[in-house]
């Protein structure tokens, strides 16, 4: 193969291969950075777009939800369970000893202070992403009165804490806040 460094070797001007190495590195690095910048714009186009991000919050009116029942609202394409708990359910959730839990967490940590009758959780089973049953009284709610996942039999209590596997974690809590006593804003 041709030796490029020999091409311009002139008497009195010996070829300096280190200059070529430098040029090669600079050119290669420049091309790599350029290609990377272009690749990034393409890859980033797959991230959530502005219109998707604009749908990042929803308001929920709590007044129509009767005691003992829950509703499902959609937030960022995910089901959110909003459940109106009975005083007995609240007491049961608060009295559960942490030692009985797979993923120990107090009920107080899972509700907003002063609004313990409302539990708001992401309705996606932490096992493999199915939507558990239990919002309607006619749904199976499992042994702990919360939610029951039909896919692999995971059971959650009225605080959305996992009580029976295979799910490893409690139902996730979405960010939300009470705007008034009867209205919450999720996201």
């Amino acid at each position: 193969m041709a030796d490029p460094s020999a091409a311009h070797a002139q008497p009195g001007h010996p070829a300096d291969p280190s200059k070529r190495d430098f040029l090669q590195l600079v050119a290669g690095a420049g091309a790599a950075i350029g290609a990377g910048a272009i690749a990034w714009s393409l890859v980033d186009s797959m991230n959530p777009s502005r219109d998707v991000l604009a749908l990042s919050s929803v308001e929920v009116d709590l007044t129509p939800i009767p005691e003992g029942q829950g509703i499902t609202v959609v937030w960022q394409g995910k089901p959110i369970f909003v459940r109106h708990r009975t005083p007995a359910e609240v007491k049961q959730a608060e009295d559960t000893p942490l030692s009985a839990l797979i993923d120990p967490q107090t009920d107080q940590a899972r509700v907003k202070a002063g609004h313990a009758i409302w539990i708001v959780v992401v309705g996606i089973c932490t096992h493999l992403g199915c939507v558990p049953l239990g919002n309607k009284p006619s749904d199976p709610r499992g042994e702990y009165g919360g939610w029951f996942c039909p896919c692999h039999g995971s059971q959650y209590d009225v605080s959305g804490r996992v009580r029976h596997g295979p799910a490893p974690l409690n139902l996730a809590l979405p960010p939300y806040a009470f705007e008034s006593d009867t209205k919450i804003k999720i996201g």
Partner: protein
Amino acid sequence: MAGLTKSDFKNPVVNWIDTRLPVFTMLQKEYGVFPTPRNFNYLWNFGALAMVNLVIMIATGIFLAMNYQPNTLLAFDSVQRIMRDVNFGWLIRYVHQNGASMFFIVTYIHIFRGMYYGSYKAPRELLWMLGVVILLIMMATAFMGYVLPWGQMSYWGATVITNLFSAFPWIGPKIVTLLWGGFAVDQPTLNRFFSLHYLLPFVLVGVIFLHIAALHITGSNNPLGIDVKTPQDTLPFHPYYTIKDSVGICVYLIVFAIFVFFFPNMLGDPNNFIPANPLQTPADIVPEWYFLPYYAILRSVPNKLLGVCLMFASILVLLVLPWLDTSRVRSARFRPIYRQLIWLWVLAVVTLGVCGANKPEGIWVVLSRVATLYYFLHFLVILPLLGKIERPLPLPESISRAVTGKGGGPLPTGAAATMEKP
């Protein structure tokens, strides 16, 4: 003949792969030491530029398709969403949109280079014909891509172009209905155009592979148009032409970037910012600039069928160009008359382009008729006769003699391309 390849690569992993699938040996042979005429000028960059352009179009197109909706109710808005909401969507779309124009600029120059230096002549006739096929597929792809944003010009362009086929007697209207999948350009048309617009670039990749395979059999033509005779006439493709192509790619990307970032809509039509309306044709229907010459040929003939036939013929005539040109001298450099007339032909094409951009009235009708006439005169009369009457200049003995002015030319040690492996 079955059996493992003997690989000369030292790296054990490369050697292991190469023994079983000699891709590295092939790359080394076709793009490493490949003997290439030593006298290329920058016009020989444009094949590589077209390749780069195709890759850019496929890459940006795939990401556009992730957000585009081929539905008449959603298409226009989905393109607006790409421009406004999708991360870097504006960039990806403007690169794709202007990339189409860049593709035609590069390809037209590539074709002109072939015509000027006689690259279509024996033994490269099939190579040239594959190139014409590539041009036809490119045009079909570009046309269908232009329909997808579903603006006014998309819709009416689709209507006019598909209606061209109605010119053929009896079978014409049936073809048009088949193309539309209905009785007007509508949802089925948009849906199938999207499907085909996604497919055809990959067909292009296949035909381009054949184009390049044929090129590597015949070897490249060169500005002198004479055959390579000795290794002194050639240089190894790498590093000499990889570097020369890289320089061209940098310039090309600069021009491309100027369009994308400063004049992204210069080559587009404002009517395409209006959503398609099947009940209202825009006042001026103009195709994209790269179709203007053919459009002018179409309009220059008052007879519908004849106009359509002439328009198709204006491209198909290129297929038989190797046999229309009777001169055996390839390069225009040694053909004193052809060297002038080829520019007259270019002038005719440019004139047709300008005529196509203007309303078909007054001087533009006359001009487009004269230019159309000359366009075909060049291929059908001038080229066959010129080869017989033109007295070519004496050809140089060899490429290296012409380049260095010396017999054989003392090349730097080892610079001549040889088939030895590294």
